[in-house]
């Protein structure tokens, strides 16, 4: 077939095409509607939340008279007013919507107030008079560990005899490192609007990654059932995991007040309130002991992870499991013991954040590898390579999943070459030798990230495809759009399956009444799951159309072929709209649901073994930094990334995920620092004090490429690979480049994350060892 012919037949916006985000035109025009932009229904009340100022206390008296008397106030609600279950915890029911008399973190919701305007509600919420009886507060993971304060039981994952292997190893090293938490800082804060419907039903607009869970928790809180509540979300202004479980609190409060008042109610958190009230990435204290040989190869290793989970379980169980599953990263650990403590602290309950515990696990092993290399005086890249998983040997993870798709060597070899790693390392050595104040450093770190929810039952999805008689298509699925381009990718899949141009497909809001029981859009699995479900739905329709056409035109099914926006039946061409109209006229069903469950996964949580992940995503990055040893300030100079997106559904969107994830990870490991006062109050609760990267933090030389041979060995949707979370961890190269600069070929700098200028200066001058 001639090339021109192929082009003509190729649909616009099919799989693999770098089409813009489906809402890009709306974004730039300010016309994309976010939850707070929805035209407000008549009578809308605005809500605000009164928060605890104590980290741990019994509420002796909650005097809300002044709140009620404040201008514009319509209603005030406390825990006692909740008709159903006072819980918004997703797994364990230990997360009160409104504190029932015991407060367990500073910032916890005590009461809600409804007023005519947003400002009136916020002003009123500050007028409560609260008397507390303060209780002893546990404010950090180590204290929790010492006191045995946990939200969930501790877990252990072991393979081989790590103790014996460490003892027998020629070299040993032990130490402690810490890695900080991270606020999501989605640009759109948490928001929900609940609108009463007839018979006490509620329609809830929620900025959420998990509408189905909001639906269930709202129903329980208002004392009703799932069928009485519909939750919708067209888009979020960023999620990153921060809108996986946290929106339930916001939506429940809005729903409860809407139920009480019979009026639409909106709760939108101010930025400070959002940062005080909602969970973040877990910070960890990590102890390690490792035995290795003179080449740096690990023979035995033990990790102790103590995570700050905050005051409730939230998703901490699965998050810490993932930490355990990722503290091998790219390395074969023959004898290993991993102990994970889920510490209960009187701070906000920590939650999902891009990587979901994985980044902290990978931070741990990369830290150890770097320490080994610096102890031996070897290039850390050599030690990394020494420990890489093999193919055919040394290829079984601590949880006994065999690596079947290992491309680590391929990626790292290619990247080390294209990034000119060896030559630059030498050049940097020379530079540093003649530069007493400024030091440069370089590091290459790999990423291997397991794809699938570790809770096997969550790996399922549904979709709905409706074809209308004019040939246009309405697409719906259980995934949510938070900027990651999921809606675009899934629509591309449907366009491909139906052989029609993308612009004929309308992407619609996630809606619990269209596709029920959807899992959270999380674990990077959005397009894997929903793409497959939508494909299944589209294929049903396509099959029906083929069958119909064959019958209708009296030809064999093989003689019916889909081309761009039309059907070829023998020699005859039937435009798609005409085909659809004919089918409808002949009573062919033009709507279908699709369903998908991920194959080949199984996993026994009791033994921490099995095949929790369908496949792995891989990538690697080289970062180079310059550090000022007088102040600790540092800058990223150059970044080279090679990432495996499989056969990308949309290279432009995937590139955006890689770049954005990397920068977000760099923020986590450098400038983003969460601070608490001695009384357990978060002191960094606004962008004035909590610093995410800005455009000048971007490396002036930033080179990102996708692995060209990328193609998923598993039968994922068009052999693509998940790309939401893995790139975040490429930023470990930034952290290790800073360590490299500080070490300047000598010694092990005591630098932990985040590497703020202060932390860097401390490490530069030999302080900071834990």
């Amino acid at each position, binding site marked *: 077939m001639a090339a021109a012919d192929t082009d003509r037949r190729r649909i616009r916006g099919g799989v693999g095409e770098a089409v813009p985000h489906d809402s890009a035109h709306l974004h730039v025009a300010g016309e994309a509607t976010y939850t707070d932009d929805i035209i407000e229904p008549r009578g809308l009340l605005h809500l605000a939340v009164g928060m605890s100022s104590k980290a741990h206390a019994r509420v002796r008296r909650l005097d809300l008279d002044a709140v009620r008397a404040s201008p514009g106030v319509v209603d005030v609600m406390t825990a006692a007013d909740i008709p159903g279950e006072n819980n918004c915890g997703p797994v364990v029911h230990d997360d009160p919507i409104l504190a029932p008399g015991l407060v367990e973190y500073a910032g916890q919701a005590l009461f809600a107030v409804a007023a005519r305007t947003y400002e009136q509600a916020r002003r009123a919420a500050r007028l409560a008079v609260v008397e507390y009886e303060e209780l002893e507060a546990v404010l950090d993971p180590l204290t929790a560990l010492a006191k045995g304060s946990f939200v969930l039981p501790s877990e252990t994952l072991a393979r081989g005899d790590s103790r014996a292997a460490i003892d027998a190893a020629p070299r040993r090293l032990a130490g402690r490192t810490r890695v900080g938490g991270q606020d999501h800082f989605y640009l759109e804060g948490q928001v929900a609007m609940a609108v009463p419907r007839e018979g006490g039903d509620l329609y809830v607009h929620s900025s959420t990654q998990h509408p189905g869970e909001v639906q269930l928790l709202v129903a329980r809180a208002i004392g009703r059932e799932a069928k009485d509540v519909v939750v919708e979300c067209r888009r979020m202004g960023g999620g990153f995991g921060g809108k996986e479980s946290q929106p339930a609190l916001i939506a429940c409060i809005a729903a409860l007040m809407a139920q009480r008042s019979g009026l639409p109610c909106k709760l939108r958190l101010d930025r400070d309130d959002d940062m005080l009230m909602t969970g973040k990435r877990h910070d960890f204290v990590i102890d390690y002991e490792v035995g290795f040989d003179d080449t740096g190869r690990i023979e035995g290793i033990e990790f102790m992870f103590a995570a700050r989970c905050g005051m409730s379980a939230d998703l901490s169980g699965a998050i810490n499991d993932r930490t355990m599953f990722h503290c091998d990263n790219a390395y074969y650990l023959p004898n290993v013991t991993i102990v994970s403590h889920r510490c209960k602290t009187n701070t906000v309950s920590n939650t999902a954040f891009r990587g979901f515990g994985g980044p902290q696990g990978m931070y741990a092993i990369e830290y150890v590898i770097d320490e080994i290399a610096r102890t031996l005086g070897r290039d850390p890249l050599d030690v990394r390579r020494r420990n890489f998983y093999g193919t055919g040997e040394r290829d079984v993870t601590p949880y006994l999943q065999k690596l079947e798709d290992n491309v680590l060597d391929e990626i790292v070899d290619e990247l080390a070459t294209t990034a000119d790693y060896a030559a630059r390392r030498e050049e940097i050595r020379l530079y540093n030798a003649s530069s007493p104040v400024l030091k440069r450093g370089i590091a290459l770190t790999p990423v291997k990230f397991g794809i699938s929810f570790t809770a096997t039952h969550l790996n399922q999805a549904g979709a709905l495809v409706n074809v209308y008689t004019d040939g246009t298509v309405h697409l719906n699925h259980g995934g949510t759009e938070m900027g990651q381009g999921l809606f675009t990718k899934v629509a591309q899949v449907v366009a491909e399956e139906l052989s029609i141009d993308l612009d004929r497909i309308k992407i619609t809001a996630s809606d619990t009444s269209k596709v029920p029981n959807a899992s959270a859009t999380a674990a990077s699995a959005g397009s894997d799951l929903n793409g497959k479900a939508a494909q299944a739905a589209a294929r049903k329709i396509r099959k029906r159309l083929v069958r119909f056409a064959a019958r209708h035109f009296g030809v064999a099914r093989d003689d019916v072929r889909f081309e761009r926006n039309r059907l070829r039946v023998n020699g005859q061409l039937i435009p798609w709209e005409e085909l659809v109209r004919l089918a409808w006229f002949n009573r062919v069903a033009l709507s279908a649901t699709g369903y998908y469950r991920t194959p080949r996964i199984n996993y026994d949580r009791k033994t921490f073994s099995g095949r929790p992940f369908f496949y792995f995503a891989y990538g690697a990055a080289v970062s180079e930094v310059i550090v000022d040893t007088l102040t600790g300030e540092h800058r990223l100079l150059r970044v080279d990334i090679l990432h495996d997106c499989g056969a990308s559904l949309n290279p432009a969107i995937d590139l955006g995920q890689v770049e954005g994830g990397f920068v977000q990870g760099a923020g986590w490991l450098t400038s983003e620092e969460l601070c608490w006062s001695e009384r357990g109050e978060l002191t960094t609760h606004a962008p004035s004090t909590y610093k*995410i990267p800005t455009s000048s933090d*971007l490396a002036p030389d930033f080179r990102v490429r996708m692995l060209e041979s990328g193609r998923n060995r598993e039968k994922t949707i068009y052999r693509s690979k998940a790309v939401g979370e893995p790139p975040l961890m490429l930023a470990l190269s930034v952290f290790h480049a800073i360590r490299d600069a500080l070490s300047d070929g000598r010694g092990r700098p005591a630098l932990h994350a985040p590497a703020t200028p202060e932390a860097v200066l401390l490490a530069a001058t030999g302080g900071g060892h834990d």
Partner: protein
Amino acid sequence: MAAVDTTAEGAGTVRFVLDGEIVELHDVDPNRTLLQWLRDDLRRTGTKEGCAEGDCGACTVVVGELDRDDSTIRLRAVNSCIRFLATLDGKELITVESLRDADGSLHPVQQALVENHGSQCGFCTPGFVMSLLALFKNADRPGRIEIDDALAGNLCRCTGYRPIVAAATRMYQLADPADADWLRRPGRPGEAPPADRLERLRSIAREQATCVGSGDHRLYAPRDAGELATLLAAHPSALLLAGGTDAALQVTKQLREFETIIYTGNVAELLCIENGPDGIEIGAAVTLADAVPVIVGHYPELEELFLRFASPPIRNAATLGGNVANASPIGDSMPALLVLDCELSLQGAAGTRVLPLAEFYLGYRKTALQPGEFLRSIRIPARSAGDLVKSYKVSKRFDQDISAVCGAFRLRFSGDRVTEARVAYGGMAATPARALDCESALAGAVFDEAAVEQAMQALARDYEPISDMRASAAYRMRIAANLLRRLYLEYSGNAAVGVYAHGRG
């Protein structure tokens, strides 16, 4: 002195131009922000709220105003979340919704963002569009540093910025320099705006002091310093409002409601810049955007400091006077102004007096301003040839961050001997303050390794810094001393210092 009604029972209106129409608003509460008005009243929800404190840029809009010459229009990005609606009087407002053509086609700025995949969740995007629009109209093919600076006040959590930076170049390629629509033509310095646009702005210009308000809340906008003094005498507890980049946060964050606000932004004397051979006199209401080029003209060494002072939208509103009068211990201009031996001119009902800046700060957020007195201008002496002048800011992030420590230095030499030393820091004490012990350690000494060592040690006698979320006391002390070393190394050329110049531009 012009008569000014200090009681102003009958509040007037707020008038400004929006999309070619003159908007006239009655009963404007002086505490109402532009963002609240846009989203809640006008239902223009393209402009977003991400923080309500000027730090994220989601609320960025562009404000146009007649330039001093009355024949050009300056377009400037500002944060609508901390801009009081009432201060828009006489201006032109451009929001993201203003950019679409009648036929629905996108503006080159918007088109460039789409082409480069510059939006993911899209929530930050309207703000970036407006910051890029300001860049598009004010700069011709900017380089990377200029682009980064233009975007310094806009946070994006999704994209990692690379595609947005790319769009800042691409937008010029997409633009048609002959486009009939002035907003769609890229900036050419000095280009006259369309006559009708100018005319509209002229038509709403005020000659007289104004008063707007609702209920018993009032905002007065006097036109001259005399009126200002009279008003301030009549309302001694009023909020004196300049750019509002500090004051407005008391409304959006502390939820205060001011009864009486007196706005300095129209006071002629306070808007003057006098640039003469023996120095610069900067009126207290001059924005940083206007003041900085003049200051940097005399002291090019201060360019990086002001580049790192907040972001363009903040600098477009914030005043140098507000920075000084605000008396924050971490204000960035003051260490430099202290070492330059600046003087303040303070005016009250009793007249005007001159006070050295070094005597202005009495304690934490406490100044020598008497009730009814206001800051009229800041006098910066001309540079003395041969002076070594530097100011270094250290913070967690390069752009738009508050200093952990900001140090400023001025050394005068005779040969290699220091004859006069000025050293001042922000972030080291309850006020920005000179380091007198350190200064005397340097004065008279040969500026060498030993002298620097002495000076560094003297700092421990000058300051007792505190610990907070920005930095610990120990770190502050360390870097304050190390900045002196940096000064010496930079002076002596013995070693390369400072990381920010690397790989940029």
